[in-house]
């Protein structure tokens, strides 16, 4: 395979404000800070195009977690020895840092084990306040993490689950919204950015309509935090969740952010130490918010490390990261389109999408595509991306997805395009 065979910016693609010299068209941002990118896979330099599954981590994040274990490791909120105080400071410092990043006070940030845990906390926590016949509105593009918990609460509490359909262009069908938001709608749950279509949803608009109906709004921001510039208040939602590991941070850590008084409405769903106020043998009262939602020993090591990821993002600025992802996405859409014979999902306009593109090649099954690309060192993901209902509506069981992080560049998309050509050649196309 030859790489970088087309080094000028194609017409219509705005180069983002990259670092000069890094790459000819669009600078990789801080790529040299991500140790894994120095790897070779199958004898080729790694081309990592799977950031929507998990982003790579800058060395500063990796070092911060190691430093925590080498210098401070202790349990938090317990006892009063120096290591315990330091560990607590690091843990609470992460909570404040996340609050600052999204523009909310620390008391409205719950530390969880990931976006999935956070969504289970919201769905399970709202459950007891819902009555049979109450309605929950989800969209037809949700990740299983923002769908299956609602299916379960609906089953348990006798609720009605409704689905906001999509337009042919892969966007929310807002015309259907007035009809689907009823007097019984209590919860509207939607993703900020689809992990398959890339679509950026008009969360503020949906939230305003939902609030007029008296429903609370839950936003799955797993694909947007650290990638799109926004504050919690701009979205107008009541609950927002995300995972650190998709925002250049460590695994095993996520967050639930609540609007004013929103966390107060949740019953705890996990029970144990640290989340109680008083326990007798037969009953318990809950600790203050947000602690009541944080049962057991948290992942202090990951919390100690995540601020370094947010620092990296802030150093690059979200505006620049966003421009970069738009530029890469536009280029990918254009080159994939020019290949011909591919179905490309989601909006055509890169400015309406997050940094990912899913596609389907009728000649090469997505798994074979991923395998053959991997043989060239190119990592893309193949499968249903935890969105089976969406794939069913797209008429396929699996797609291929290329997704971008700050460290990617136009070169990587060139490699992908060449790789697709190679995969087709294997199947004699």
């Amino acid at each position: 395979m030859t790489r970088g065979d087309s080094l000028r910016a194609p017409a219509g693609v705005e180069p983002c404000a990259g670092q000069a010299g890094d790459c000819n068209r669009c600078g990789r941002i801080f790529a040299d800070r991500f140790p894994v990118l120095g790897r070779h896979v199958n004898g080729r330099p790694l081309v990592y195009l799977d950031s929507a599954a998990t982003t790579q981590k800058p060395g500063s994040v990796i070092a911060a977690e190691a430093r925590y274990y080498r210098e401070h490791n202790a349990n938090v909120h317990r006892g009063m020895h120096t290591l315990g105080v330091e560990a607590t400071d690091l843990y609470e410092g992460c909570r404040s840092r996340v609050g600052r990043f999204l523009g909310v006070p620390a008391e409205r940030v719950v530390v969880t084990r990931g976006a999935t845990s956070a969504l289970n906390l919201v769905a399970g926590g709202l459950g007891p306040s819902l009555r049979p016949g109450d309605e929950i509105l989800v969209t037809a593009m949700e990740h299983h993490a923002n769908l299956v918990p609602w299916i379960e609460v609906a089953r348990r509490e006798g609720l009605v689950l409704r689905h906001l359909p999509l337009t042919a262009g892969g966007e929310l069908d807002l015309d259907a919204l007035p009809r689907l938001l009823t007097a019984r709608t209590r919860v509207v749950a939607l993703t900020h950015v689809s992990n398959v279509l890339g679509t950026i949803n008009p969360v503020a608009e949906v939230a305003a309509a939902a609030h007029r109906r008296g429903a609370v709004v839950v936003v799955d921001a797993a694909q947007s935090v650290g990638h799109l510039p926004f504050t919690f208040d701009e979205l107008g939602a009541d609950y927002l969740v995300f995972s650190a590991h998709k925002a250049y941070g460590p695994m095993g850590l996520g967050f639930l952010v609540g609007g004013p008084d929103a966390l107060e409405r949740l019953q705890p769903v996990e029970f144990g130490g640290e989340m109680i106020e008083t326990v007798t043998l037969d009953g318990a009262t809950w600790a203050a918010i947000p602690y009541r939602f944080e049962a057991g020993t948290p992942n202090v090591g990951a919390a100690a490390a995540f601020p370094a990821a947010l620092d990296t993002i802030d150093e690059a600025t979200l505006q620049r990261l966003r421009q970069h992802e738009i530029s890469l996405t536009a280029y990918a859409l254009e080159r994939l389109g020019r290949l011909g014979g591919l179905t490309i999902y989601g909006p055509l306009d890169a400015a309406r999408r997050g940094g990912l593109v899913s596609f389907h090649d009728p000649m090469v099954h997505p798994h074979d595509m991923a395998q053959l690309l991997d043989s060239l060192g190119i990592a893309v993901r193949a499968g249903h991306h935890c969105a089976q209902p969406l794939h069913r509506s797209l008429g396929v069981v699996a797609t291929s997805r290329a997704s971008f992080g700050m460290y990617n560049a136009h070169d990587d998309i060139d490699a992908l395009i060449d790789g697709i050509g190679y995969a087709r050649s294997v199947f004699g196309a």
Partner: protein
Amino acid sequence: MNAGMDELYREVILDHHRSPRGREPLPGPVDARAEGKNPSCGDELVLELACAAGAITGAHVECRGCAIATASSSILAELVAGRTPQQARALAEAFRTAMHSPDGVLADDLDPGDLEVLTGVRKFPARVKCALLPWITLLSALDAGGDGAPAAPATTEA
């Protein structure tokens, strides 16, 4: 081809994938049927068998899956015809064992045909379940017996 890809996508496999056998519905009644799926990939497969005089006379496989699953389905359709259910089961089980063993040898007396080529997939652990799916589904069809009662969908993810 690149790094090992020629071991995975052997010509025999590509050939089965391009013109899969067993795609035509069975002419007569269906004596055993099973569905299989790999939930994490989305691969889905329906297998129907016809039997007569204690032997499998034909197989019909509808496979929505990757090249490996499709080729494996095709090889299955080719190989089971003419075998007794016991022989078919023995072949499926030998194949499963081979896919999880380092050398992947299938005894010659099993008459493994193109299945021998497919054992090369064992060097790609993520693809083993693609190759196994049709054969696990076969075992489930044979378990269900000839009574036609649908068994729970077979899966390679246990």
